[in-house]
């Protein structure tokens, strides 16, 4: 890639006030560096990913509302986690986290366990308990 070809499209890093460094060739074929504000193909796959993740969040929200899953699933999706990451943050085994994802089991969770989940999701126990998918 030539220095003049370093893309200057719209990108999410530049929106936060930074740019990305590229290695590219100058007119004499020597390697040099240049800053890029973003690259469209990258932004396209990024946007697609975020849309898919939003779909997962919306699905979890409606599943909580229909009493198919517990709020743990919604906050797991919201925080871009998966079962293993929830297990690692809470210190609760993955198979138990999956059990706690059932509304009936969730209802009977101890305050101690609820607190672990709330901390992992960075919310209060009240918010976790009272989330109804609305």
């Amino acid at each position, binding site marked *: *890639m030539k220095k003049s070809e370093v893309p200057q499209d719209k990108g*999410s890093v530049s929106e936060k006030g930074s740019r990305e460094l590229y290695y*590219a060739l100058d007119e004499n074929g020597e390697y040099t560096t240049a800053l890029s504000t973003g690259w469209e193909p990258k932004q396209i796959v990024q946007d697609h990913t975020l849309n898919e993740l939003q779909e997962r969040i919306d699905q979890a929200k409606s599943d909580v509302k229909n009493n198919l899953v517990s709020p743990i699933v919604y906050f797991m999706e919201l925080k871009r986690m998966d079962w293993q990451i929830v297990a690692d943050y809470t210190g609760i085994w993955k198979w138990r986290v999956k059990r706690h994802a059932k509304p009936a089991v969730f209802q009977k969770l101890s305050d101690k366990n609820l607190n672990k989940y709330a901390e992992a999701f960075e919310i209060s126990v009240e918010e976790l308990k009272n989330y109804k998918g609305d």
Partner: protein
Amino acid sequence: MQVDFQHHITAHCENGVASNLLKNKGLDISEPMVFGIGAGLFYVYLPFIKVNHAPGISYRPMPGWIFNGLAKRLGIKIKRQKFSTPEKAQAVLDDNLKNNIPSGLQVGVYHLPYFPEDYRFHFNAHNLVVYGKENNHYLISDPTMETIHKMTEAELEKVRFAKGFLAPKGHIYYPIHIPEKIDWEGAIRKGIQKTCSNMLAPVPIIGVRGIRMVARAIAKWPIKYGVKKANYYLAQMVRMQEEIGTGGGGFRYIYSAFLQEAGKKINNPTLLTLSAEMTAIGDLWRDFAVKASRVYKQRSNEEDVYNSLSADLLHLADLEEEFFKKLKKAI
């Protein structure tokens, strides 16, 4: 307190931390040199590990390997520590700052306050340097950022003790010894040999064989998983390739820059020719990303697109196999 430290933006975090820390210790080494000697160019396909709900593909070795490989080949000694508690981790960092030692940290990016929202995933192999503390705020030199940033004690603790795959556990590292005389030629040769043996490894998931395995897999994605899931997997693949670690085209350009610098340094004109060749391969990786991104714009002929992407990837694997065989002979 603030340690005398110069922040330089780089393309890749681990290269950048290594290069910035070594420059601070008086060893002027560029990012491409770190990357080349540290054998940072890599490829591994981990279909059995799901990252963000998609099969794992990594364009870089495990965190720490670049700096460790570099240190080994240059005779540098690095001190590394991990911790069982955040208190101990902070105490060691604060001590270092008191003793004028800028320190590299491995961190998770999900809680990094200065990262854009859409980059914040549970990815734990990011690297940055802490070089000072003012009013309970740490001064952060993140080599992928143009400027320096500040973080509170609580914020830094959170990223140092991020959980999940490759959890950093407070991992801190810094060079403690740099030899007076460095054998650059030997180091460059060994770094290149290591990259060649990685990329030509006789293991089906690593190097060019790994690229081929992915190429064969993506042709089947739309039939096996349906178009929606296939498109999501492809998006993750391209994201890993061109964004998170700048692994595809970006890495090839850094490697080309390395070959150019190394060729001049040890007076080996073949490396200059190969540098130009690698640049052309890097351009093809970027073409691949452009083509892949078109999947999200036009929805026709999905299967054809995947077959064609698969063919492109197989072609890249062939080119790279040939390239690394030539490179191996050149040194």
